[in-house]
């Protein structure tokens, strides 16, 4: 299974029926494809819609309805539209149950850096700082390494997205839960060994007795 697919499938298991969810551009949007049976969530797009869904094949695209990446989108019956002030009121105000974002680095304190590489890549934070600060649950969905170089490290050296500790890190190798004590390794992907995960991770991992295999039932 491709890394992105595996990550999206595992993240989808975290969704609870009725949740209000915001998915970042890229990998996180794949989560919509793998929601568990019977789980219906409302997707918020920060450009002003709750109840967004992907544009069905062959449906007409138009500029007045896009996702936060500018890609034409569609909406479910019961959707609601609003302006940017209201949209970020939902996000900061504690009304958003889950946000799923990509990451450049996460450290032992569970802090995320995902919006710039000084001097190289300065895309801007967009809505990421508000999302990580305000959402009830923050899930980082990312590949475990960047071309072999660890992304889960002792201390972020890229500018932080927020000082808030994220709630869960899902990679193609493992599921990791930041806690007061440090990063707890909760699950290993099928066919991945503990040693392999440790070798691909710079941060110290706490390994509990009940380490499980990643749950991917969809």
């Amino acid at each position: 299974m491709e890394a992105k697919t595996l990550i999206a499938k595992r993240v989808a298991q975290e969704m609870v029926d009725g949740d209000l969810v915001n998915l970042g551009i890229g990998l996180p949007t794949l989560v919509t494809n793998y929601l568990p049976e019977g789980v219906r969530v409302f997707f918020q797009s920060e450009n002003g819609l709750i109840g967004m869904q992907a544009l069905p094949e062959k449906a007409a695209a138009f500029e007045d309805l896009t996702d936060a990446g500018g890609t034409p989108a569609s909406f479910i019956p019961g959707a609601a539209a609003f302006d940017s002030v209201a949209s970020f009121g939902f996000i900061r105000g504690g009304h958003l149950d889950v946000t799923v974002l990509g990451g450049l680095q996460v450290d032992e304190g569970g802090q995320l850096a995902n919006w710039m590489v000084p001097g190289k890549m300065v895309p801007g934070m967009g809505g990421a700082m508000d999302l990580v600060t305000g959402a009830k649950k923050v899930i980082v969905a990312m590949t475990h390494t960047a071309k072999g170089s660890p992304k889960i490290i002792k201390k972020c050296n890229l500018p932080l997205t927020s000082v808030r500790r994220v709630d869960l890190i899902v990679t193609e190798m493992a599921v990791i839960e930041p806690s007061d004590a440090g990063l707890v390794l909760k699950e290993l992907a099928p066919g991945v060994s503990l040693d392999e995960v440790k070798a691909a991770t710079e941060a110290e991992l706490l390994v509990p007795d009940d380490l499980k295999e990643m749950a991917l039932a969809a």
Partner: protein
Amino acid sequence: MSKLCSCSCAVESIADGSSVMIGGFMGGGSPHRLIDELVRQGKKDLTIIANDTARPGIGIGKLIDAGAVKRLVASHIGLNPETQKRMIANEIEVELVPQGTLAERIRAGGTGLGGVLTATGVGTVVAEGKQTVEIEGEDYLVETPLKADFALIHALRSDMFGNLQYLLTSRNFNPSMALAGETVIAEASEVVPVGMIPPDHVETVGVLVDHLVSWEA
């Protein structure tokens, strides 16, 4: 008391060096005709306040391509390599603002507030040089209000008074910018007679709109 005017006439009032808020999100809900006219009239040294600069050749990206922008206040420029290139070459000064903070700063500017307090950005580079206050045990940044000489708005529909309605994700920053611009120029996809938009369905009140440009005008 018609506010209707031609695109060229509305844009002529915007002097080089003006600060201009422009609605839109990756091009969606941007006033495309007004942007094209800014480029055609060769405006220079503008300060643009907007969520993003779309992509090269699209929406606000056209102003970047044309070299019309001296300073930019935005939340995201990641999908426009031209903006990033000009920022790194020091041709455009860019202030990056978290999107929710940008929306609230514009709202504050338009509604007479001295600023807003937000937890977004606390402890990050965004907090540098800003005052932090503690309220009920939580830290917040003091973010200042944003105003502009002009706000360029896109609406789905306008009546002849300038009462506006928006459509779906084309709403985005338009309603708040309509309050924060000293002079507001609205571009509507259609202009209808007064009375056609019921009071309960007016989203931006016509008294805020100074000039109205329709797609047919």
